[in-house]
């Protein structure tokens, strides 16, 4: 399936399904027989963006590979809430690695499948931003550099949520975490820190890199499907709001993810062999305040005397993204 926007069928392709469209143009998630790879009964918080993103991505990968997926999972929320021994929510072959080596474990699975000549079985490694951008970074870079046949999916909720919301290298500037309190002259996570892993992945010139959001399911599924059609090292970075760590209402998870995209703070793009090949235009542009205001981790920017300077700095980041990734509506 290539991503195609339906110009007008009431909701076009913005909703999960659309009764007026052919089944093939609806999402995997609209299907009554989707695999529900991550099943009910998991212990994720109410409105967990990561649980949602993981089911979206793995269900799409299952469909794209005719249900031939093995996953390695770094320690983190996703592992803890899905698989407290001896129960699991996973309905796929799934292996828990330690915090930092999901990429290496996946590389090993892929190597074993190669030795056993099991063609058609695809390997996915997944983890949160801590296990990916910080702790697992060396293993991941190695996996990229060797072009191992693994799709690595990072569910980015912008801090170490499982252990109590500590800052990671994916935490955005200005955000309050347990380790970057909203105190002092420059409250929250300092500006000028952190790293952009999709761009680092691109620098390895791997076949495919993409960013996706739980607020744009059609785009997310198309990217997973595309990645599953390619061999070699691939990387998808999915933005997944965390009601607990971000201090947002559980019912706002998708809305916040949408505002991150619509404000330009989280650009959606694809890159092949180190070059950006496409980006998703913003549909209804929103100022960064709309995104920030819904989250208590940015509450110190508002209140009686809003920190207009810091908000403007965050707006600058968004504007830079909009220019850099050509996100202006076309």
């Amino acid at each position: 399936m290539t991503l195609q926007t339906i110009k007008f069928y009431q909701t076009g392709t913005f909703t999960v399904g659309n009764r007026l469209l052919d089944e093939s143009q609806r999402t995997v998630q609209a299907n009554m027989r989707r695999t529900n790879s991550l099943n009910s009964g998991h212990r994720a918080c109410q409105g967990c963006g990561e649980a949602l993103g993981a089911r979206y991505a793995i269900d799409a990968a299952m469909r794209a590979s005719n249900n031939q997926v093995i996953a390695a999972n770094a320690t983190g929320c996703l592992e803890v809430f899905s698989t407290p021994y001896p129960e699991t929510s996973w309905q796929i072959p799934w292996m828990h690695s330690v915090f930092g080596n999901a990429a290496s474990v996946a590389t090993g699975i892929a190597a074993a499948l190669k030795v056993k000549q099991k063609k058609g079985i695809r390997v996915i490694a997944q983890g949160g931003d801590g296990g990916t951008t910080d702790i697992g970074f060396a293993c991941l870079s190695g996996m990229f550099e060797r072009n191992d046949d693994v799709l690595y999916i990072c569910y980015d909720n912008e801090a170490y949520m499982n252990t109590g919301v500590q800052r990671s290298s994916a935490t955005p500037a200005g955000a309050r975490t347990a380790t970057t309190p909203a105190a002092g002259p420059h409250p929250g996570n300092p500006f000028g820190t952190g790293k952009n892993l999709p761009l680092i992945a691109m620098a390895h010139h791997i076949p495919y890199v993409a960013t996706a959001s739980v607020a744009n399911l059609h785009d997310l599924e198309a990217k997973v499907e595309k990645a599953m059609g390619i061999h070699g090292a691939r990387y998808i970075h999915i933005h997944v709001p965390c009601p607990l760590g971000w201090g947002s209402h559980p019912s706002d998870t998708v809305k916040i993810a949408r505002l991150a995209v619509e404000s330009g703070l989280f650009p959606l793009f694809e890159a092949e062999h180190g070059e950006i090949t496409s980006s998703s235009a913003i549909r209804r542009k929103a100022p960064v305040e709309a995104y920030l205001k819904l989250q208590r981790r940015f509450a110190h920017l508002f209140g009686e005397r809003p920190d207009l300077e810091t908000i403007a700095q965050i707006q600058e980041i968004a504007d830079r993204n909009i220019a850099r990734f050509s996100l202006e509506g076309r």
Partner: protein
Amino acid sequence: MKKPFAITLDPGSSLANHTGTWRTERPVYVDRLPPCNHACPAGENIQNWLYHAESGEYKKAWESLMENNPFPAIMGRVCYHPCESSCNRGELDEAVGIHAVERFLGDLALREGWNPEIKAKASGRRVLVVGSGPSGLSCAYHLRLMGHQVVVMESEKDSGGMMRYGIPKYRLPRDVLDAEIARIEKMGVEIRLGEKIEDVMAVMEGFDAAFLAVGAHIARRAYIPAGDAAKILDAISLLHDMEEGNPPFLGKKVAVYGGGNTAIDAARTAKRLGAEESLIVYRRTKEKMPAHASELNEAIEEGIRFKWLATVKEMGDEGIVVEKMILDETGFPRPTGAFENIEADCLILALGQESELSLLKSIPDLETEKGQVKVDVSMMTSRPGIFAGGDMVPAEKTVTTAVGHGKKAARNIDAWLKGEVFAKGALHEIASFDKLNTWYYSDASKTVQNELGIVRRQSSFDEVVKGLSEENALFEARRCLSCGNCFECDNCYGVCPDNAVIKLGPGLKFQFNYDFCKGCGLCASECPCGAIRMIPESI
């Protein structure tokens, strides 16, 4: 069973963990009342028939429409569509062109020869309907659907009431009117033409109940001193004469006095009859005019002129004398003492109409108010078994209100005949704009209906506004946001992080699995149309 090293427990599924116990609020599917339905004087379920039209199931759509209104083709032309004024889509881009889709369905039904099906068994009861206008025929239609025998008595030579004798042909072609009335007759409703009822009690024998809908056909007059040669007539007689094929001679310069829709109809008719100048004189301003905006605009396009803030004081041989008015702080027009002469060959009065109530003379204690018959919530007059509706009772005087009265009266008559009281279900909560998540709707602007060229509009009685093609009607139907009512977009099924929404299949909608629903509310906030409500759990 021997287990591998360091393993002591069998693997289990997380399904054993009923996370539904975490919940403090639960989502429930609701049907909220769409603002269009709420605004419709005929009580149509607009969202529902648009839903069927969206799928291209036009017959189903028409059947749904016909449950509340027997005149889709007429209504799509002459209703002032309060549904569209209240449409939530109006806050997004433009209101859905509901009337245009309704007209498309109505015309299609006439082309295809669709007929309503009477499912009720014959009741053996007979109801008299006096007047074959929109109210009378609507009542007859609904009573017939409920299995009753209905006889409609009409004093005119032809049926339709104000739809025929008050609405000009260029707004409502007579073949459309005839066809929709014929369809009601085909159902077994008997219409007796030229039967003027002098005394309703004298004809009640053989009937179990009566519905009076004689309308308001008597023009209200104003005393205007006039010279011998002055030609003054009233708008309602003009429209009546037009229908009978006797257009009066009006002259080159015509003045119409009044500000309602009838005034506009008279002025536009005068233009079509060859008047070089057709002027509407109204005592207040354009903004205060009771005529509907769309008709006002069409009149302006056709070259009708207006004299605002003026009252007609007298008419001489050369024309009329008007007095200029000013609005006081309450918006009431006050005379200024300044006069102006305006050339006119004839003056048409459009100052409103009253009902002819002489048929009630043998019920002297019947309650009336300002020349109108008082009815209770069930549309019954103070005389049990005699119901009334349409222009003869106090209410807004539009075709659609009249159709609504007919339906409401029929339901109450049916209950009354059974010795019951008709109980209307409680109104659902209104699906206001803030209940929607409009991000999901595609951007699509309204389809414009073609209009007849201006020269032909000024010279002929051909219909002014054209219908939509099927393609356009389908597009327009698909602009509906389905406010408050599930249209199976699968969003709730998709966005639940706990797979706690069960999809039941096409047409069957969804169900919550409360064993696992944690009550996060994502489904409710991502539902485009506001068909999910979060309610607190009882503890």
